[in-house]
């Protein structure tokens, strides 16, 4: 039989001024299982808490009701109080006599007193059904996984590594560097992009705490915060990087050429290649789709007719250290991590869907990223911007913004944030390189919202770029030039601009495979397949999945400063997590009674935290089982479960029903 103590707080006159404390104490003393009822000027004061602790000992109380303010205010305070007296802290319930009673019913003392008594009765009925709960301590692996080797992931990996923790950085491509490596200059300072990026890439490669896995992808994620188990596929490179010295003879001598992905197809690379000279690691991979030896192997394997293409194997012959490994296969590594940072970045929007703009049809219509590669001194053209159609320098260049941004027709509702600025950058640089170039920019709004961005936009205008408000409705070819047609909405008239080159300011979209990765990580993503942060303002790098953080453009369009900042922020969160020796889990989570579970598994489908797994019992029944480390205690599963198998500790069906029933006792 429970021995319940009720402690009624005056809260000065806050409660006592409206509620007749004497009557409440008397009524509480007569409630079932209540062996002690007392009032107190301030329950939360140190003397008040001492009285509670003493009463627990003196009356051998097994449960406690504090009738005072809102539990949102002081539940934790009183949990500590009862714990200090040797009770399990969860054998406590609060009746909210202040916020929910005396403060809002000061116009009726009688009614307020009646309500106060009933609120206490509800709390008494509930606390009688409370159980001892114990937070669990879980050990954690102090090792972080960073997915994505762009600037954001690089920053996150370096910051964690510099905090003294081990990091594994996984990158899908053969090199880290991401999109930033492809850029020529960066706005608004016009720093050379690779000049500021490559030192960081080298730092990653050399850092003792960082393990770099390129040409690798995350396949499966199990576990929970502190104890993730992640399967990573190391794709076959056909080159043994342990032996390879990166001398470069192989890619120089390889006779097969393919369009360079890094150069947006504007230049060529060999079949065994590094994407660009400063690639990290500076060691090559073999592109088996284009490699002559692999073409030969496929020909033989598929038993095609005719003479097989010759086996080339030049790289193998020339390699001084015998690093070419034709037998290399995809490998799956399974590693343990305590935290994961997702920094998978973005992909440039594919503009061919805008048929009216003729991308892919008119060679002189290019994307912003292609312009970057053209402009780059280390790019395929050595920085010389020419018309793809005839190799001449353009005189009139027209830029179109919001391509794949702010366009519901294309399913991209959002602003890509960086386009206005990179267009301004192109206009400034073009004018600097080629003083007789005339740039025109068709825009809807110019969004220049960060430090020095507005000034940068002004600089573009001053350099001579003419801004025309409107969206281009069509581009046609005429006399070897392009005629760009759109409304100038500020004049209310159509304008046509004869141009030599048109640059489409393509927006950012989710990088391929984002949804699958999000599902594996149990992180939510939006309709645009962008990751959703735990709170857009207050928890911008956390996710609803504990221990999984997000950085960079995988959350939404971000520029370099923001990507770096979010990378550092996520790293700080990881470092804070790793500073703990154990993780403590909240015991007020859901549970499933396996005897009562009928196995419909609806709970596994609705759980917002994917915290419910299935388990096959020895009798062959498949039942639901709660992963307490993932459960956040919302109780949706309880209401979903017809079987009455799911329950929520601290808010059990029994406890809530007891509260309802007590009102009619």
């Amino acid at each position, binding site marked *: 039989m429970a021995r319940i103590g009720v402690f009624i707080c005056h809260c000065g006159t806050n409660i006592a001024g409206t509620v007749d404390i004497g009557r409440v104490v008397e009524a509480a003393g007569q409630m079932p299982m209540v062996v002690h009822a007392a009032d107190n000027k301030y329950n939360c004061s140190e003397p008040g808490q001492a009285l509670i602790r003493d009463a627990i000992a003196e009356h051998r109380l097994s449960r406690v009701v504090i009738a005072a303010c809102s539990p949102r205010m002081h539940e934790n305070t009183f949990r500590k109080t009862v714990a200090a007296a040797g009770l399990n802290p969860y054998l406590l319930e609060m009746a909210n006599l202040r916020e929910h009673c005396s403060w809002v019913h000061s116009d009726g003392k009688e009614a307020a007193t009646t*309500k106060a008594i009933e609120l206490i009765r509800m709390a008494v009925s509930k606390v009688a059904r409370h159980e001892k709960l114990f937070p669990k301590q879980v050990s954690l692996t102090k090792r972080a996984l960073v997915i994505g080797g762009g600037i954001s992931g690089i920053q996150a990996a370096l910051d964690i590594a510099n905090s003294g923790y081990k990091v594994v950085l996984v990158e899908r491509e053969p090199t880290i560097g991401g999109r930033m490596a492809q850029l020529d200059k960066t706005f608004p300072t016009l720093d050379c992009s690779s000049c500021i990026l490559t030192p960081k890439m080298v730092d990653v490669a050399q850092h003792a705490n960082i393990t770099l896995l390129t040409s690798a992808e995350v396949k499966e994620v199990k576990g929970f915060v502190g104890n993730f188990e992640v399967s990573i596929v190391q794709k076959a490179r056909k080159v043994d990087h342990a032996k390879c010295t990166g001398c470069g003879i192989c890619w120089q001598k390889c006779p097969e050429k393919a369009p360079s992905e890094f150069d947006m197809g504007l230049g060529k690379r060999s079949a065994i290649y590094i994407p660009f000279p400063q690639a990290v690691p500076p060691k090559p991979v073999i592109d088996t789709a284009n490699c002559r030896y692999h073409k030969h192997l496929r020909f033989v394997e598929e038993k095609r007719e005719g003479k097989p293409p010759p086996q080339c194997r030049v790289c193998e012959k020339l390699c001084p250290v015998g690093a070419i490994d034709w037998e290399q296969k995809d490998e799956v590594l399974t590693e343990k991590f305590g935290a994961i940072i997702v920094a998978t970045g973005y992909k440039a929007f594919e503009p061919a869907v805008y048929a009216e703009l003729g991308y892919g049809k008119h060679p002189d219509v290019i994307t912003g990223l292609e312009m970057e590669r053209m402009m780059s001194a280390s790019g395929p053209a050595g920085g010389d911007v020419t018309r793809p159609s005839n190799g001449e320098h353009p005189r009139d260049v027209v830029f179109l913004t919001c391509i794949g941004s702010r366009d519901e027709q294309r399913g991209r509702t959002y602003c890509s944030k960086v386009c206005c600025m990179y267009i301004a950058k192109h206009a400034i640089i073009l004018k600097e390189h080629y003083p007789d170039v005339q740039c025109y920019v068709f825009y809807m709004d110019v969004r220049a919202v960060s430090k020095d961005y507005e000034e940068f936009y002004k600089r573009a205008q001053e350099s001579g770029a003419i801004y025309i408000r409107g969206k281009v409705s069509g581009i046609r070819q005429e006399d070897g030039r392009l005629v760009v047609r759109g409304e100038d909405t500020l004049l209310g008239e159509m304008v046509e601009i004869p141009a030599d080159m048109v640059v489409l300011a393509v927006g950012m979209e989710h990088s391929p495979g984002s949804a699958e990765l999000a599902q594996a990580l149990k992180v939510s993503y939006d309709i645009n397949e962008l990751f959703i942060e735990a709170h857009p303002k207050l928890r911008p790098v956390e996710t609803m999945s504990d221990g999984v953080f997000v950085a960079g453009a995988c959350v939404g369009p971000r520029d370099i400063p923001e990507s770096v900042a979010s990378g550092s922020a996520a790293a700080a969160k990881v470092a804070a997590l790793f500073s703990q020796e154990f993780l403590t889990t909240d015991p007020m989570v859901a549970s499933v009674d396996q005897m009562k579970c009928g196995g419909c598994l609806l709970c596994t489908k609705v759980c917002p935290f994917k915290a419910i797994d299935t388990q096959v019992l020895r009798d062959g029944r498949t039942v639901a089982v709660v992963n307490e480390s993932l459960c956040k205690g919302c109780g949706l599963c309880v209401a*979903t479960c017809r079987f009455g198998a799911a329950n929520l500790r601290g808010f059990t069906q029994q406890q809530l029903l007891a509260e309802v029933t007590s009102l009619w006792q």
Partner: protein
Amino acid sequence: MAIDFEPRIVGFLCNWCSYAGADMAGTARICYPSNIRVIRVPCSARIDPLLVVKAFQLGADGVLVAGCHPGDCHYTEGNYYSRRRFALLYPFLEYLGIEKGRLRLEWVSASEGRKFSHVVSSFTEGLVSLGPREKVPAEGALP
């Protein structure tokens, strides 16, 4: 209509928005009728319709379910599920003869103390004008 009739209301409030909104009404000293008895739950999605049906069986004159506004759920999506559940329960109870106006679902945020007070006031007034529920025969009330 009984002038002195004091309806009994069971209110299930989610901890993060509506319970906090009720706290807010208190902090701001916004008075409302004392007929409501609040049961705190972590999320409106935790509320099993059985609890509501049971409250009516026991003799509740009204049941209030309140949660975060759609899109604001602390657990991201719980209130979308509760909205569906109660959208269906509501006409069903009415069909069984429990008048419209005895079950109410409201979205009250942590800052909407005034709204909470308004909801309780108007709900109470509505229940007063509906009058007491026809009593379930006494022997049915409890085992």
